């Protein structure tokens, strides 16, 4: 620790304003503040500060994401061996998953942080810690079969058009990780939908079993919801899907961490679940009685378990920058997301996974929701005054 401090202090003057490596000041700053909470003291205003900072906030989100990530790694192996009809131990699954998932995470961080560093050098602004979370969110929303260059492209797109052109973390109006996902979805549809959810790298002496189907639940449910896997399997996440989103349980563990630590908004998470459930119930009531296989008959709570509903609600919609910022606004924003996801899922068979685009759409509407809430607040203030 002291050694690290000495090392940092010895090179620090080289990056100071006016010296040779001035250009890289903020780059150096990013590494220094990563290692050490800086020695800055309060100037005017309060003399003591809460220990919380943005790095800690991001750390909490990463901790909350760990269950989803670990489960995703395991499930990657599990689905792979299942497709080949092979017996596999817990370790087999983890090792196969790590080999496949780790490169995606590394590439995502490297590409995204590369762009952040480039901007900090050319634009002379501090490197924000926002990408620590975004860099992990992107891989978890992707199918495991995605080519690595595509991950890099998505990460670059996300940082460049999702954040930097608006001025960096705090200034963007859409969730950068989702933006990257949407960009990849539309740019490379063949890699983002269809039979791509399970890694089918050949296994010597084994063939993919006949019963294997690459279709995810969301495709299944549009034709006949009754052939969905059991609620328990969907809750636990023993199914195909993007790396990190299959396990509702893992997402809920993440939700608890976010809510208890105060980093994630319970208002948003709860209202999305409530909105989705209520809409699901309404669908059941209005469902055509003569077609019992119609998607409208899907039990309301299945919407929570299918696809990336939970992952989107817990980790994507809660991004404080792109979500609604007023307390009432957050509830409206959450309810609308929940409702829209179910509506799109049920009535748009061509596009079954609605979570991503719904959240992006509501990101765009969040400022309007806030505006209405603030205007109402001003009106009641005037009335009481």
């Amino acid at each position, binding site marked *: 620790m002291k050694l690290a*401090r000495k090392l940092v202090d010895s090179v620090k003057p080289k990056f100071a304003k006016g010296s040779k490596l001035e250009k890289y000041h903020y780059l150096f700053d990013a590494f220094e503040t990563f290692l050490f909470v800086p020695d800055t003291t309060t*100037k005017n205003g309060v*003399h003591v500060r809460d220990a919380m900072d943005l790095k800690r906030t991001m750390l909490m989100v990463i901790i909350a994401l760990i269950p989803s990530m670990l489960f995703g790694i395991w499930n990657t192996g599990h689905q792979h061996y299942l497709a080949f009809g092979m017996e596999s131990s817990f370790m087999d699954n983890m090792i196969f998953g790590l080999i496949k998932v780790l490169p995606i995470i590394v590439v995502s961080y490297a590409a995204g942080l590369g762009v952040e560093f480039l901007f900090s050098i050319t634009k002379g602004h501090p490197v924000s810690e926002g990408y620590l979370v975004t860099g992990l969110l992107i891989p978890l929303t992707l199918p495991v079969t995605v080519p690595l260059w595509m991950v890099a492209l998505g990460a670059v797109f996300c940082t460049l058009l999702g954040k930097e052109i608006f001025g960096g973390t705090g200034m963007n109006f859409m969730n950068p990780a989702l933006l990257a996902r949407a960009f990849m979805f539309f740019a490379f549809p063949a890699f983002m939908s269809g039979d791509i959810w399970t890694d089918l790298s050949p296994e010597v002496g084994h063939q993919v079993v006949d019963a294997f189907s690459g279709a995810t639940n969301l495709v299944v449910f549009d034709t006949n919801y009754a052939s969905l896997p059991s609620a328990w399997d969907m809750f636990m996440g023993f199914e195909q899907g993007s790396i990190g989103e299959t396990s509702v349980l893992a997402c809920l563990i993440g939700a608890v961490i976010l809510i208890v630590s105060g980093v994630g908004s319970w208002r948003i998470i709860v209202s999305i679940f409530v909105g989705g459930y209520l809409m699901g119930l309404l669908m059941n009531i209005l469902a055509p009685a003569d077609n019992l296989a119609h998607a409208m008959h899907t039990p309301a709570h299945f919407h929570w378990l299918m696809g990336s509903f939970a992952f989107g609600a817990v980790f994507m919609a809660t991004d404080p920058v792109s979500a609604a910022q007023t307390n009432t606004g957050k509830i409206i924003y959450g309810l609308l997301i929940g409702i829209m996801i179910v509506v799109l899922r049920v009535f748009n068979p061509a596009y079954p996974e609605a979570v991503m685009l719904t959240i992006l759409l509501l990101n765009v509407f969040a400022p309007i929701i806030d505006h209405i809430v603030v205007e109402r607040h001003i009106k009641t203030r005037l009335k009481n005054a």
Partner: protein
Amino acid sequence: MSNNLRIKKGFDIKLVGLPQKKIEKIDAPSIVVLKPSDFKNVTPKLLVNEGDAVKAGQKIFFHKDLPEVFFTSPVSGEIVEIVRVEKRRISQIKILTDKENSAIQFNIPSELSSESVKNILLESGAWTYIRQRPFDMIPDPQTKPKSIFVSLFDTAPLAPDYTFILDKAKLQKGLEILSALSEGKLNVSVNNDEMSSIANKVKGVNVISVSGPHPAGNVGIQIHHTDPIRPGETVWYVNAQDVAIIGELFLSGIYTPKRTVGLVGSGVVDPRYFEVIPGQAVADLVKDKIKEDNQRIIQGNVLSGTTSNESDFISHYTNQVTVITEGNQPEFFGWALPGFGKLSLSRSFFSWLTPNKTYDLDTNTHGEERAFVVSGEYDKVLPMNIMPVILLKSILAKDIERMEALGIHEISEEDFALCEFVCTSKIDVQNIVREGLELIRMDA
């Protein structure tokens, strides 16, 4: 009349270094220094010259914009130096004290009316203890406030216990004077029965029993919940200790601004109370009583006080002097450690498991300044029907109409101090509030 006010939002920062219930005297000062900068928005016009002899209560300078408002000497002695800084602005008026303690005797009228009380307050310099919301400055004597507020308790970190330090007879007299001045529109907030019974003895007082965490003791919060300020209105307020000083003036006829100040905080060896005269050297107070090296001396509390040092002088309104360690040490991976000894409102440090622990906080910012990212943080510590971030953003945009619609005239820097404390992005919230209020004031 009596009301209850329960404040739910807020936070008590529990710090090490609470004062013991002990009041000590320190030696009378040889030099007393008046600092016009103690008074917000006051341009001083001198009434004395270097070499003049002055008595306690004698006028030293007046308020350029409000020529009826005088600032008087707290002691008798001789003006030895008038220190001017750039643009000939007066920064200090130094008075060498004598041992005679001669003071001007004010004629206290037997009939207390709003006018007669006002005259004595203006003549003696005690008018300076009255301040107005919005803007926290000395009010124009020609205007009438909507009401007057006195908070008889302070919930800020390590704040003095007024129930212990104040003379009850003087306090009661002071409240009677303010009741006369306000013509029956005096609101007094209390948090215990002893203060409540004193306030209830005064005729025409609306006593408000307040409970809850800081900032429940701030007048801004109390005004907001009992008699909110609309644009164009003003409410006056007087600090509890200043009420007792006003009371003493009317009991004895002599202006005696002596006050009891808590010397508190983790940097103090034996935290307790001291009787001081405003203008006395800070060194007199802290000498041999604080830990050496790397300490920050603050006049006021850790949330809204001003940074001071040993060569500074006790300010006109100071009720506590807090000493804490400077946090100018980098911390290895501090943002990633579990953090048992770190105070945070967010529960991302394990310290939330021990709510009653007291903390030895230093002045480290614990992170770098960022744009607004986390939402809903400020709302948890601001017990007002105000949207803090939206208001701050309207200030940053210099949108005066919107600031007014969002209620800027109801707030003061100190009411937003906790918002600044909890801010994850380390934004200078109080600075922004100050800028906003200044914009509004210039606009009016």
